[in-house]
């Protein structure tokens, strides 16, 4: 498990360059360009179970969803930040990507520290020290846990039957 640590105000252009937004939409097309202008090693080396950690306002900027789709496709266990921009936050719920807003945990982290996240328990552990973070409201957890918004909507539509 590797922790990819970044600064404040990591915007969506750094997470996924705008020049590809209308030519790359599927997870396979997105992955090679993920974080291209921020950290070229990420797309090559990031693995399922890794954690992304950042400062304030992570994901600010565009509404493009390639960053959340891409991070989910890589299998990122959680994105931990001091704070998130709202469209990114919402998009992560829609993709079933776990976000942890916990400034104390980010501040406690030093390079090489082990980090683990328990989303159900609302606990993040950094170098053996536990921090609690607020859990999402139940109706939002239901969307995330269904595997994302479209999976949730498919179930709802099937339940109600065809119009």
């Amino acid at each position, binding site marked *: 498990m590797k922790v990819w640590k970044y600064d404040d105000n990591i915007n969506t252009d750094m997470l996924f*360059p705008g*020049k590809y937004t209308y030519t790359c939409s599927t997870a396979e097309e997105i992955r090679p360009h993920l974080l291209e202008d921020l950290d070229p090693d990420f797309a090559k080396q990031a693995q399922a179970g890794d954690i992304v950690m950042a400062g304030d306002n992570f994901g600010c900027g565009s509404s493009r969803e390639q960053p959340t789709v891409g991070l989910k496709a890589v299998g990122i266990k959680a994105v931990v930040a001091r704070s998130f921009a709202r469209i990114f936050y919402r998009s992560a719920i829609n993709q079933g990507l776990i976000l942890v807003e916990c400034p104390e945990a980010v501040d406690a982290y030093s390079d090489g520290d082990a980090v683990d996240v328990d989303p159900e328990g609302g606990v993040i552990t950094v170098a053996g020290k536990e921090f609690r973070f607020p859990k999402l409201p139940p109706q939002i957890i239901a969307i995330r846990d269904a595997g994302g*918004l479209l999976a949730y909507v498919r179930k709802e539509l099937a339940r109600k039957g065809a119009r």
Partner: protein
Amino acid sequence: MGETFAQKLLALKSGKKSVDVSEIVTVRPDHLLTHDNTAAIISKIGDELGTYGVADTDIPVIVIDHVVPASNEKTATNHKKIREFVSKFGVKHFYDAGEGICHQVLIAEGHALPGSLIVGSDSHTCTYGAVGAFATGIDRTEAASILLTGQTWLKVPQSMKIELTGRLAGAASAKDLILTIIGDISASGANYLSVEFHGDTASLSMEDRMTIANMGVEMGAKNAVFPVDDVTEEFFEQAGVGKTWKSVWADEDASYIRTLSYDLDKIVPTIAKPHSVDNCVPVTELVGLKVDQCFIGTCTNGRLGDLRTAAAILKGRKVHKDTRLLILPASREIMLEALKEGILQTLIESGGIVLPPGCGPCLGAHQGALAPGEKCLSTANRNFKGRMGCVDAEIYLASPATVAASAIEGSVVDPGKVVDR
């Protein structure tokens, strides 16, 4: 305790008498904006569209604007898929390539109305706050969900109040005001908040309000909204949009988590330096900085008043040989007006390159890209690293007056020296 704009509007749209801050409500948006990304949106739900169709064909408004005309086979195919979708499902509101940038079109065509709720798979959907709408950005997946269900959830945000006094003076513009605010409170200063503008808003034209609301997201706002007044009514009257709306506004005693005050008379021409929108300084600090490209346009500053300002400065002058000037009107209607007024002739004679209405250069998606080491002075809303297609280029954000004046010298000029408002 009174209610904020966000509380009142979201209560109305969720069919409740009142809502509390932080409450999660299910709402039926008046409209859903999607653009070139409609192609990717519908490809997520091909099967479901076949089974369930579009929930309400009056809700989607689709504008092809991000890569227009198509740049290659892939983007052309996207456009084709969108046209086929519109035709097959009978989507009522569709604007093909060339009509303009979505945010201009939705307001000019009367889709974004006072008291309406609009969500869009574009972060600058917040522009519609200019006309008193609650408007906010969502991702493609959520847009797909709304096509199928006609509804979504929203959390009722806390609100910030920005109290304006006085009147913009000299070469200062709405762009300089919003850059100043973002510079003061930072790119996350309004995160998750509904931002309400109060006070002396009457002197701000509809174009000014659109520029300001457009950049609400650059300080993290969920929406940024102006009160509906005579300026709004006159705007829709001239646009030929009937008065079918009912406006919504905050109570006098509503509760805000933060209140800011700005004296419009004190605003000066401002520039946001690379690579974040809150990295703002007065233009006077950068005078003489050489720029390789000057760009006037986008959903922030591509309106008739912006082009008029640029033409007044450039009339009888030439763009400096060491820079290039791109002009991008925000819509066909604006382009046509600019043509009739002789604005385009002036700008072309001065050496400007006129581009078709669209979004391409702003996000590095189409035309106007930068080379490594180049600097662009732009009227757009974002100066993120790599934004205009090159990670080793720099973008500076400013008003149309600043960009036009600087194009003549090939370097940053204080528009206060050339503009007499």
